[in-house]
C-alpha cells in the first residue's frame, strides 16, 4: 500500500535506507528477546554467568549497548522514512529478517559453540536447543536474503523505468 506512494525514481535510494533500518531493528529485536524472554521470563540466562570469561563480558556488554542504539536509531530512521512517504514495508522486512537471522545465527554458532561464552540453557541435553535455535536463525536469514534480492530487483526495475521516461 505504502509503496505505491513512493516516487519511482527515488526507489533505489529508498531501498537502501529501508534495508538499513530493518537490519538495525532486527538486531535490536534479537537482543530484546534475549533480555525479556531468556533472562526475565524463562530465567535460562543469568545476570552474571559464571562460565563467562572477561572477553565474553566485554563482547556481551558491547553487543547490548549497540543493540539499544540500533533499536532507537532504526525507529528514528523508520519515522523519517514514514514522514517522507518512503517507507517500503517489503524492503524493511527484508532487512529485519536478515538482521535478526544473522545475529541469532552469530549468537548460536560463534558465541555459543565456538567461543562457548554461554549456553541457551543449563543442566539439560543442549543439542535440541541448539538445533532449534540455529534452524530458526537460518530460516530467518534465508527468507531475509530472498526478500532482499526480490526488492532490489524491483527497485532497479522501477528506477530504470523512470530513468527511461
Amino acid at each position, binding site marked *: 500500500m505504502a509503496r505505491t506512494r513512493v516516487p519511482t525514481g527515488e526507489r533505489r535510494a529508498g531501498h537502501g*535506507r529501508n534495508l538499513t533500518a530493518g537490519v538495525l531493528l532486527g538486531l535490536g529485536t534479537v537482543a530484546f528477546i534475549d533480555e525479556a524472554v531468556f533472562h526475565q521470563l524463562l530465567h535460562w540466562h543469568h545476570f*552474571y554467568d559464571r562460565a563467562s570469561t572477561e572477553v565474553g563480558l566485554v563482547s556481551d*556488554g558491547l553487543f547490548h*549497548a549497540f543493540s*539499544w542504539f540500533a533499536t*532507537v*536509531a532504526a525507529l*528514528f530512521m523508520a519515522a523519517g522514512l514514514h514522514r517522507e512517504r518512503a517507507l517500503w514495508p517489503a524492503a524493511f522486512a527484508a532487512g529485519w529478517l536478515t538482521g535478526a537471522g544473522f545475529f541469532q545465527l552469530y549468537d548460536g554458532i560463534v558465541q555459543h559453540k565456538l567461543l562457548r561464552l554461554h549456553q541457551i540453557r543449563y543442566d539439560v541435553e543442549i543439542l535440541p536447543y541448539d538445533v532449534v535455535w540455529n534452524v530458526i536463525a537460518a530460516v530467518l536469514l534465508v527468507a531475509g536474503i530472498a526478500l532482499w534480492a526480490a526488492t532490489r530487483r524491483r527497485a532497479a526495475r522501477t528506477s530504470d523505468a523512470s530513468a527511461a521516461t
Partner: protein
Amino acid sequence: MDAAPQAATAGVLALSTGEWALVVALLAAVCAYAAAAVHLRRGGTAAPWPRRRTALWTCGWLCAGAALAGPLADRAHHDFAWHMAGHVLLGMLAPLLLVLAAPVTLMLRTLPVRWARPLGRVLASAPMGVLTHPVTAAVLDIGGLWVLYRTGLYAAMQADALLHAAVHAHVLAAGYLFAFAVLGGPDPAPHRCAPALRAAVLVAALAGHNVLAKTLYTAPPEGVSSAQAHTGSQLMYYAGAPVEIALIALLCASWPALGAGRTPLVRAAGR
C-alpha cells in the same frame, strides 16, 4: 552505627549541618536560574526562556539533592544497593536533566555583554575543546567509576567526609560533561564532534558502564557484602538503562542522516 538508620527514619528534616548547607546551595542554583528566566521573560527584547527548561533544571537538582541529602543518602552510607540508587540519580539522571536545561545559554543571554563575551571566548578555547571531547568526557565519567569501585577509593570515601563530597562532586560534574559532549548541546558547542563519533563513544561508554555493573555482581568493592553487591549491580544495570536509552534517543533525534527532522524530541533537546 546504630543511630544513623534511626535518624533516617525519623524524617526528612533530620539533616546534618553539611546537608543543610547543600540544600541551601541547591535552592540557590534553582532560584538563580528561575530569576534569570523571569528576567528574560520580562525583558521583552529576546525570545522568552521556555518554562520547560526551568522545570528540567529544577528536576535535575531535585534528583541530585535526593542522592546527596536525606534518607536515601543516609542509607547509601551503609548499603551498597542504596548507594547505587543514588549513583543512578546523581551520576546519570540529574546530569542529563541539567544539560537539557541549557544553563550556559541562559547565562550568555542574561549576563552583561562585558561578562558574556569572555565566557564565550573560554567556551571556544582549545582547552575546552579537549575537555568537552566525547572521549575525554567518557574517560572522566566511566573511568572515574572504575577507579571508584575497583580501587580502595569506595571504602576510603565512606570514612572521610571530605573525600565523600569530592567523589560525589566528580560523579555529577563528569556525568554533566559526558551528557553534554555526547549530545553536543543544547548549550553552544563550538567543538561539537560528528554524530557518528558521538554515537560510537556513547555505545562504548554504555558498554563500559554495564560491564562494570556485571563485574560488581561477583567482585564487590572492598567492604561490601555479596548480597548488597547483587542488588546494587543489578540496580546499576537496569535502573540506568532508561537514562541510557534517553541519551541514545536524544542523540538520534539530532542526527540528520537518520532522517530526523522537526520531531518533538528535537525541540525537547532544544535544537
